[in-house]
């Protein structure tokens, strides 16, 4: 009789505690999300608070225990999010190099265009100023232009390869 009574009392107490715990789950989850947000840097807190709160709304529909488990997981990974957001030498290098690489490509293209223009101008000038030398100068100038274009392509390829290597090495 006593054992039955104890079982009933324990059952009632257990269900009350479970109901109470389930009721507290959303509050606990919210607290954990706030604590997770506090682990991030000042500049990122608002964004992640809003993002995680929106996700929390989705999870609320799945049940209180799932919500709490997600919040615990979130709190545990918040440190990794914070470290990913923190500037590191390699990230800074990457950020600094990106515009430099773009500029290098732009400047090299411009320099090659300039070199081609100058070469053409100089050949043209020689042909105009020494008409008597035209028969000899024509093949010579053609060779200079051909060799120049080849050199341009070679330089262009080298620059492109170099930019690609640097870009890859500082990528993810």
């Amino acid at each position, binding site marked *: 009789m006593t054992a039955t009574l104890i079982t009933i009392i324990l059952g009632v107490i257990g269900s009350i505690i479970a109901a109470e715990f389930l009721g507290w789950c959303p509050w606990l989850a919210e607290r954990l999300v706030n604590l997770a947000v506090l682990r991030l840097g000042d500049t990122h807190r608002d*964004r992640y608070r809003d993002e995680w709160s*929106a996700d929390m*709304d989705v999870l609320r529909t799945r049940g209180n225990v799932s919500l709490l488990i*997600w919040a615990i997981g979130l709190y*545990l*990974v918040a440190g990794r*999010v914070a470290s990913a957001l923190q500037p590191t030498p390699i990230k800074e290098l990457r950020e600094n190099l990106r515009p430099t690489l773009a500029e290098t490509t732009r400047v090299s293209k411009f320099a090659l265009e300039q070199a081609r223009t100058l070469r053409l101008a100089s050949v043209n000038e020689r042909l105009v100023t020494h008409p008597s030398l035209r028969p000899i100068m024509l093949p010579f100038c053609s060779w200079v232009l051909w060799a120049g274009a080849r050199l341009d392509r070679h330089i262009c390829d080298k620059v492109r390869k170099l930019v690609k290597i640097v870009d890859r090495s500082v*990528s993810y």
Partner: protein
Amino acid sequence: MTLQTQLVLRVLLRNARGEHYGLEIAKAAGLPTGTIYPILTRLEVAAWVESDWETIDESAEGRRKRRYYRLTSIGAARARDVLTRTKHLMFPELSEMLV
């Protein structure tokens, strides 16, 4: 690159122009919901992924705005490259058969 990151990239590549929010990506990739955030943050810092707020009227929709993620054009190209290389490394016989 970790296997989890590759799974996330695969999900994002499946619909490269589409937008996905964190939980949706985690579900599609079969990852625990919490693990998705550091991965997305790292990818975003590396400029492989970009994110933006959903444009909805919160009061009309009855929910908060979600943060949507999508691959950048550079990110999509690199993701394809990485996933192809990884596939070749993991399944060399298969890649030979495919060739």
